[in-house]
């Protein structure tokens, strides 16, 4: 544009923000630039109303009860509660019907599976409860975390030591698959609910909901690892590894459809 000194507005605004005097070149630019000549816009152009303040104070007054207290806890404590709750759900579910045999499965392998699932669950809780004042989670990091959560159970299911060949037509195969899927889905759903309670934004953020659902699959697989003695890849793939996938798809379908600002925290 003509007559605007060859300097960028960035330097001018950084100088104004830092409270340092403008250099001659900056001053010349500021005088001729239509953006900088407006100066830093004053904050009084859009005056929020007293009604808005009342609405916010009303929201704050409603922040009572157990859920509000949990959400107000420091993030490190919320993450710790999330991890402990997951372990309780997984171990508690498994204790109802604990694994009665390791068969050809070496104990080291079981330990490895439990450790990997535990690390991934910790990661998903930590990411899922990321506070809103933190920079947003990058798309790649989100995708990598969710993909790992869905694929690791598939990997373990596809490569059991001493695998038995099996087919869907085998007696009891379908029933066993359904039984294990439901067994794993229970701690998975509890995991999603726990993270929803602990999430200050109540899973309105798509990334938090996705992480919770994918993490639910891991919690389900953790419980199943302590429950099911099967080493048939078909059973493990369809009855165990699908828990996360189904939770992700279901939660995505059940969450409120797109449509503007959440009403949860709108004025009375």
């Amino acid at each position, binding site marked *: *544009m*003509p007559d*605007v000194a060859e300097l*960028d*507005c*960035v330097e001018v*605004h*950084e100088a104004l*923000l*830092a409270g340092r005097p403008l250099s001659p070149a900056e001053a010349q630019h500021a005088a001729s*630039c*239509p*953006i900088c000549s*407006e100066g*830093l*816009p004053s*904050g*009084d*152009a*859009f*005056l*929020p*109303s007293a009604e*808005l*303040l009342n*609405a*916010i*104070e009303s*929201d*704050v007054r409603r*922040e009572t009860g157990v859920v*509000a207290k949990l*959400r*107000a*806890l*420091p*993030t490190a404590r919320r993450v710790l509660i999330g991890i402990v709750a997951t372990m309780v759900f997984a171990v508690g579910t498994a204790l109802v019907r604990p694994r009665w045999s390791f068969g050809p499965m070496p104990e080291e392998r079981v330990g490895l599976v439990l450790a990997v699932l535990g690390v991934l669950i910790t990661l998903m809780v930590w990411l899922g409860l990321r*506070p*809103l*004042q*933190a*920079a*947003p*989670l*990058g798309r790649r990091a989100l995708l990598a975390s969710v993909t790992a959560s869905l694929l690791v159970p598939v990997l373990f299911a596809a490569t059991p030591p001493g695998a038995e060949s099996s087919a869907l037509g085998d007696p009891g195969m379908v029933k066993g698959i359904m039984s294990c899927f439901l067994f794993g889905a229970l701690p998975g759903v509890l995991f999603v609910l726990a993270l929803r309670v602990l999430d*200050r*934004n109540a899973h*309105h*953020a*798509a990334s938090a909901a996705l992480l919770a659902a994918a993490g639910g699959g891991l919690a389900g697989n953790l419980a199943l690892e302590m429950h099911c003695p099967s080493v048939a890849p078909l059973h493990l793939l369809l009855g165990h590894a699908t828990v996360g996938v189904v939770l992700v798809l279901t939660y995505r379908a059940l969450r*409120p459809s*797109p*449509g*503007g*600002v*959440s009403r949860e*925290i*709108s*004025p009375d």
Partner: protein
Amino acid sequence: MRTDEELMTAYVAGESSAFRELFERHSPVLMRVMRHQLRRPEDARDLVQQTFLQLHRSRNDFREGAQLKPWLFTIAMNLKREYFRRAGRRPETPLELDGRTDPAVGPRGHEQLEASDELGFALGQLPEEQREVITLHWLAGVPLPDVAQMVGASLSAVKVRAHRGYAAMRRALGEPGNSEGT
């Protein structure tokens, strides 16, 4: 006058009037930032409302030495991104910024209003990434290093967006007839 951080510390300690003071101090700029990015004034107000509720919920994360303003604006930007995702559309080209249709707009001179129209229009034409950076830098008065932290990008990336955005705005404002679009 107490600093933002002193007010937040006081609020965490139970002084509820400190929250009101923080609202009075920061809500005008937050409202301005939201109004420059959202078409409907009621949505902008809702997001400012949500921002302060989230500030309340996050209060126990606040630690001595932290700065409040980057906190508050990062919350606001995250909520705004989620708003656009939930609304199922790309960020909007705003808005009627002329103050004649929005009762929340304070009194300004006619010439200032026209200049604001043109600037608002030029800002609205920018790609979302550039508009977000310039809105925070120019309208909210947030230094670029803090903007980088808020949008989750490197400082150099944010500087490039700012340079390109300001240049595009200057070009847009230099072309006759742009204000007709407002």
